[in-house]
């Protein structure tokens, strides 16, 4: 997918982060060919990020997926410079984040990027309203104005009625809604979400994911979302980057990763994943002009959306944005796509058939 240069919101170029007492020397050793394991055992330096380059397009949800220790939380903290890189470049809308002075950096955090945390990070001594208004308060917005804004976002995330509650009186899911409202209230284009839903129960998590996707339809923000859950990445991500040991393994649309995993590590993830959710009909349709079908779906519908339709119909049409039919799919085609990858063959040819032939 090509993106125009001015559509790139966040761009990280060859960012390396080494934790330890003398990161610069460690970097030289790393560039000189020392392995990460050697570096850690011999000098006590840990490589958090290893030459990570990443581009996040404006208005997209970009998911960074990795297991614990892969460096994904380190990565997201570079975007608002909660962590300073050892080397590399971080550009947000054409502006170098690393070149900012301390005061410029604070201004940037107050007005351009908002963040949601895995552990919520709410202020326990303040009410829900005061928590949601916190970012605006730091920005210097007047009390009446910021409280009105806070009430609006509390309503949006579905917490109306809890305005005066304290965080500890809320459930985990409700607390994270406060965290989300606090970030949204800042009205920044960029939203950083660090494992925002990982601490929640599965059902609540699923509800929050749906809410985020539906909010995004109207808000159209640039969201960098960190997760260790591949299903979550596929469900909400427009683009997915897979991280392992601080290095990027693969970057692409969710279905590209599911259909063409770049290496064994990613194949392991893909193996357990719900492929019907990841693959869109656009990718597998029989394209070109065809006779109109009695039922049709948009091109970015997922396989799981069309599967039930095959109970009644043999063909399902695929429509482009203007409603024109651009292709069609059959049950056989969908099943073929789902079965092609990952599934180990357990089939044996039937002896009866062999005799007949």
């Amino acid at each position, binding site marked *: 997918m090509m993106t125009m240069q001015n559509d790139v919101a966040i761009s990280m170029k060859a960012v390396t982060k080494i934790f330890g007492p003398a990161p610069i020397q460690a970097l030289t050793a790393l560039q000189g060919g020392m392995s990460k394991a050697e570096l850690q055992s011999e000098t006590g330096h840990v490589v958090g990020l290893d030459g990570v380059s990443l581009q996040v397009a404006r208005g997209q949800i970009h998911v960074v997926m990795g297991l614990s220790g892969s460096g994904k939380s380190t990565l997201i903290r570079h975007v*608002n410079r*909660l962590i300073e890189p050892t080397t590399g470049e971080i550009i947000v809308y054409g502006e170098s984040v690393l070149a900012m002075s301390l005061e410029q*950096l*604070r*201004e*940037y*955090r*107050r*007005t351009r*990027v*908002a*963040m949601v*945390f895995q*552990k*919520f*990070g*709410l*202020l*326990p*001594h303040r009410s829900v309203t005061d928590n949601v208004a*916190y*970012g605006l308060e*730091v*920005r210097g917005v007047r009390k009446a104005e910021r409280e009105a804004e806070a009430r609006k976002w509390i309503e949006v995330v579905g917490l109306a009625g809890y305005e005066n509650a*304290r*965080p*500890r009186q809320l459930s985990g899911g409700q607390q994270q809604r406060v965290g989300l409202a606090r970030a949204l209230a*800042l009205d920044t284009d960029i939203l*950083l979400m660090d494992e925002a839903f990982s601490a929640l129960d599965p059902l609540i998590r699923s509800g929050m994911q749906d809410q985020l996707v539906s909010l995004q339809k109207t808000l159209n923000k640039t969201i960098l979302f960190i997760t260790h859950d591949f299903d979550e990445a596929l469900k909400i991500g427009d683009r997915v980057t897979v991280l392992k040991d601080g290095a990027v393994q693969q970057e692409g649309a969710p279905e590209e990763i599911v259909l063409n995993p770049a290496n064994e590590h990613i194949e392991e993830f893909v193996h357990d994943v719900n492929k019907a959710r990841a693959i869109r009909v656009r990718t597998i349709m029989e394209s070109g002009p065809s006779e109109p079908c009695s039922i049709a779906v948009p091109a970015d519908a997922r396989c799981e959306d069309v599967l039930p339709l095959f109970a009644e119909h043999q063909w399902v049409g695929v429509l482009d944005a203007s409603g024109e039919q651009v292709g069609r799919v059959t049950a056989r085609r969908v099943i073929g796509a789902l079965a092609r990858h990952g599934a180990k063959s357990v089939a044996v040819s039937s002896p009866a058939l062999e005799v007949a032939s």
Partner: protein
Amino acid sequence: MFPELIDTRPLRRAVDGALGWVVTNWGSAFEAAAKPLLLLLNAIEALLVATPWWLIIIVLTGIAWLATRRWPLPMTVLISLLFLGVMELWRDAMSTTALMIAATLTAIVVSIPLGVWMSRSARVRQFFTPVLDLMQTLPSFVYLIPTVMIFGPGKIPALIATIVYAAPPLVRLTDLGLRSVDPAVMEASRAFGTNPTQRLLGVQIPLALPTILAGINQTTMMALAMVVIASMIGAGGLGYQVLQGIGRLEVSRGLFAGLGIVVLAIVFDRITQAFGRQLQARVGISEVRA
């Protein structure tokens, strides 16, 4: 016997000489510098003595009620204060309370900024930790004598000795409280573009307040523990009664005045602790105790 490696007499003479020099040349300057402390102590004492006893009882019992909203603590406070009155210890108790309050206030003004400073710099902490250890472990007579030499016997050295002894726990607990604020909350605050002052006043101090209050409670208790020693150099109050009881072998006088000190300690300890619990519940660190 440990062999005599060096002659320590010149060193001792130098220390004594230096103190003598400070007393002759700087004595009056030190005294002038400590004058505000004396004024503070005298003002508090004058206020407490001028206030009618029943008003003080009403105020303290009322505060105890506000701190707990239940009857046991106000009752304890009421009985304790009545005991002081009935045993003819009221006037002395007020002097002692004034000394305790003046020492605590001064300790707060000095200790909290010092604790804040220590919490922000490992080097500052490294420097002050042994100093605080010294202040708490050095027998108080060791610094009491030079203080008396510099300021002359009276309330000032008594107050200073009390502050030296009572301030360290507040410094330590302020430092500890500020550093143990949940790092996740601090990071979130940082991510929203706060500067260090905004984080200190808006996040750290409110969340560390229960710990800081525990430090103030410790300081009041330690100040009360010093009153007998302080009375030896002219502080008056309940401590002086104890001292006289010992001197005249009047066991009853020493016993009742000593119980008076215990009673004051109970009153102030329970009230500050109750406020600490209330604050903790409000901050949300622990659950509200019904």
